[in-house]
């Protein structure tokens, strides 16, 4: 129990004086006890309290108490967890359910670079349809892309020794 602290607590003398005045007004506190219950009450109180203890410690009371304190909160917690787990969907995935939505949210140039053949972007496409081959391109696709956008030399700089010759063969040119 938290009590307010005082900077200058009252002195013992002040307290004694106040108690003396109060006793003069109200009489001695011990006089009250005489107006309390008589002996039979005390004997009966023990009997009634023992009965109450019996009720509180009966198997039925204990099982109700155990259920209220442990079982019910435990079951509620587990069920809540399972329900939450079942219905949980990460917010980002939920907001972009289709490839079309993702593509529409991106700049046009980015879409071209990711999806070599934009004509394949169809509203019926799902992530599963596209994901396996988004970054896997055939030689024809590479050739089409480079011939459309130029910059063949820049592409060749990043290729291995064998790849430039394959690419040049694919493009049908000996010099570029």
């Amino acid at each position, binding site marked *: *129990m*938290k*009590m*307010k*602290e*005082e900077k200058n*607590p*009252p002195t013992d003398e*002040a*307290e004694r004086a*106040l*108690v003396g*005045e*109060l006793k003069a*007004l*109200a*009489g001695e*506190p011990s006089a*009250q*006890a005489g107006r*309390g*219950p008589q002996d039979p009450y*005390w004997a009966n*109180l*023990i009997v*009634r*309290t*023992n009965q*109450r*203890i019996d009720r*509180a*410690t009966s198997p039925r009371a204990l099982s109700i108490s155990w259920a209220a304190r442990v079982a019910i909160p435990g079951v509620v917690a587990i069920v809540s967890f399972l329900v939450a787990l079942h219905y949980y969907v990460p917010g980002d995935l939920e907001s972009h359910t289709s490839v079309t939505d993702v593509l529409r949210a991106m700049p046009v140039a980015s879409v071209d670079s990711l999806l070599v053949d934009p004509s394949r972007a169809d509203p019926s496409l799902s992530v599963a349809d596209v994901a396996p081959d988004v970054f896997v391109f055939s030689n024809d696709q590479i050739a089409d892309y480079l011939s459309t956008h130029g910059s063949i030399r820049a592409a060749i700089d990043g290729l291995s020794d064998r790849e430039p010759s394959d690419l040049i063969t694919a493009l049908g040119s000996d010099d570029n």
Partner: protein
Amino acid sequence: MMEPQSDLELVQEVRNGRRQAFTELMRRYQQRVYWVARRIVGSHDEADDVVQEAFVKAYLALGDFRGDSSFFTWLYRITVNLSLNAVRKRQVMNYLHESELLSRILPSSDDPGRDVEQQETESALERAVARLPEKQKAVFVMRYYDEMTYEEIGRVLKTSVGGLKANYFHALRKVQEYMRNENERGKEPPHR
């Protein structure tokens, strides 16, 4: 002649399954527990219920009693907390009964005859104590009636002696002021 067993010995016997030892503890402290409860809650019926509940609670929680304080201090703490809870519960019920909505639902819940009877049987001092805030009431009961030291009260309420002294002093002043007003008004029934 056999030496009376100490509280701790009795507690140990209860833990060992001898229920009779708890009855002995009840016999030892029931009157003190009753009067603490009675002075805080202000009525016999509620005090009777609080005493029984305090002993039941103590019996069930005896396994948690570590013996850091005396058994009586521990029991006293349970009693004070239950008494204050009873007062709070009654205040909520009184508030609900006073509200217009509930008075429509329960039109015959007030019994003026009971109030008059209650006022006649309780002393002006009890009425003054009943008006104290709950913390001051608890401190006043323990210090004024039970003449406990501040250290003992501090162990029951788990608070500092300085705060207790201030609380007791404020309580004394309020009770004294109420008693003076009562004396001046003579036999006129007080407004509650």
